[in-house]
């Protein structure tokens, strides 16, 4: 991994990255109404890393889509850097990455990363420079002219992250970005993501199913419960996230404590069918 040429930027904005207030989301389906989210209140500070975790169907993706203005709340408001979600989308205030990398198969790695720049009319020169920078950052400079199908899943996901970072957003939205990767690649990607966040100072809303992943990455873990989707608990993590220390962290007591705390918060929301379970919260 090459060092980013620019010096790391400290979060400059003082306004909160995301403010979700009293949000409900109801879907009308053929078989009736589905309450995907009810009474969600959540604030993400600038530069903060938060994870959303919870059983399938609890509304994690829905909440993220509301922040991204890919859907509108039934009630309540979502503001992003003090603006409406729609304005923030039009202003390109966030970058987004999904579980599938979602690269365009007919574009090279470089052209995929440059897509948002191209769409927003950046000049060819600027584009080439920025794409070079980004590929450096995710360690894929040698693969600029490859096509997505010539890359492994992990590499594709790194391209998608580079693309999400193309316009230097102050907010990153990620919906299970590492869900399709194997454990080892996943750990590597997590470490890299932490480094990149430290470099860019972006706030991150990260959806995941993996407790260790949430614990390892986040400043706060938002545990959600389903039917209707509510925030069960917000578990703050007090881990030392110094990059030099990143790898060792996974084997520390504090890490395992975090995992246990999140597990218990999760199981409070949805009962576990067999065996004893902890009820204490941290």
């Amino acid at each position, binding site marked *: 991994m090459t060092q980013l040429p620019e010096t790391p930027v400290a979060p400059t904005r003082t306004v909160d990255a995301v403010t979700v207030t009293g949000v409900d989301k109801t879907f009308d389906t053929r078989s009736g109404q589905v309450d995907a989210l009810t009474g969600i209140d959540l604030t993400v500070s600038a530069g903060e890393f938060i994870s959303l975790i919870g059983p399938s169907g609890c509304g994690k993706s829905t909440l993220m889509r509301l922040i*991204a*203005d*890919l859907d509108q709340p039934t009630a309540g408001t979502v503001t992003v850097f003090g603006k409406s979600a729609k304005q923030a*989308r*039009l*202003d*390109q205030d*966030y970058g*987004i990455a*999904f579980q*599938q990398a*979602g690269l*365009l*198969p*007919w574009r090279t790695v470089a052209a995929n990363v440059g*897509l*948002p720049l*191209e*769409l*927003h009319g950046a000049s060819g020169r600027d584009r080439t420079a920025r794409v070079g920078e980004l590929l450096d950052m995710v360690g894929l400079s040698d693969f600029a002219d490859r*096509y*997505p*199908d010539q890359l492994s899943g992990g590499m594709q996901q790194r391209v998608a992250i580079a693309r999400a970072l193309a316009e230097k957003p102050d907010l990153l939205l990620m919906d299970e970005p590492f869900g399709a990767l194997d454990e080892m690649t996943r750990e590597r990607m997590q470490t890299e993501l932490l480094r990149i966040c430290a470099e860019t100072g972006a706030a991150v809303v990260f959806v995941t199913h993996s407790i260790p992943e949430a614990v390892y990455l986040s400043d706060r873990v938002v545990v959600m419960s389903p039917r209707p989707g509510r925030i069960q608990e917000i578990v703050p993590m007090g881990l030392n996230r110094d990059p030099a220390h990143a790898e060792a962290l996974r084997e520390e007591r504090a890490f395992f404590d975090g995992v246990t705390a999140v597990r218990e918060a999760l199981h409070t929301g949805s009962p576990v069918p067999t065996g004893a379970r902890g009820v204490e919260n941290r």
Partner: protein
Amino acid sequence: MTAETLAPAIRRRRGAPARELARWAYGVLGILVLAAAWELYKLLGPSDGVVIGDARILPRTTDLAMPHTWDMIARLFDPVTRSATANPLWLEVALAALVTLGIAAVGWLVGIVVGFALALIMQRWRLAEWGLLPWIILSQTVPLIAFAPVVRSWGSRIEIGAFEWQDWMSVAVIASYLAFFPIAVGALKGLQSPDTIHTELMRTYGVGWWKTLVKLRIPASIPYLLPALRLGAANAVIGAVVAEVSTGMQGGIGRILIQYAGQASGDPSKAWGPIFGSIVLGLAAAGSVAILGAILRNYRRVEINA
């Protein structure tokens, strides 16, 4: 057309030369086997065919019904007629095929424009898709021959300045009628093919329908479009030949097709010349789309069987 089951995406593999050669060899063998079967049946089969009840389930074997394969081939190299200036049959067929190919190409292009425009409209407005698609499907059940005279008659009234409607244009219009259908259906499927994830990505970039179309939908439609274009090309040739027969246009393969069919009593082998010609013609038309596919190969990294 509804839920066409698409095969899982497969990667095109370039076979080893030896394998490629075997494929060709088997292809040639297949043709030889067919010819042998023809001759064998002709030798052994009853001259009035195999009749069960009222139905003749296997053909007659007379020279009139089933000329010898070698006669068909040999006939290609004899002059068309005994008149001194007559070309050999194959040349006459080839010239006619070229004329038809040109017209079919025009019809194909018109079909592409019309088909793609329809697909765009249907992609843009769901209501348009619901309103038009059933009629587009229905349009292909209208027998071509029903409106060939109408097209010719309407065309003949078009005269704008120096532009005058030509017979071949009627043929091209009819060819385009057959060609537009697979293209409209294929292009629609292609334009609708991008995953939600891709369309939403474009939305997060805050770009509108046009940019999404140019940067996402059109490139994504290419793997669907290529087989549609191939089908369209074959259809354009079929349409051109039928329309030539129907409107009596001179110079094309449709014309010699009925002409030689009319002479089949005295010269049964001759009628096969234009049949071979139209096969070569159709294969050439469909094959030329393969060149297009090779040019656009970067857009076909996900292969679709349509």
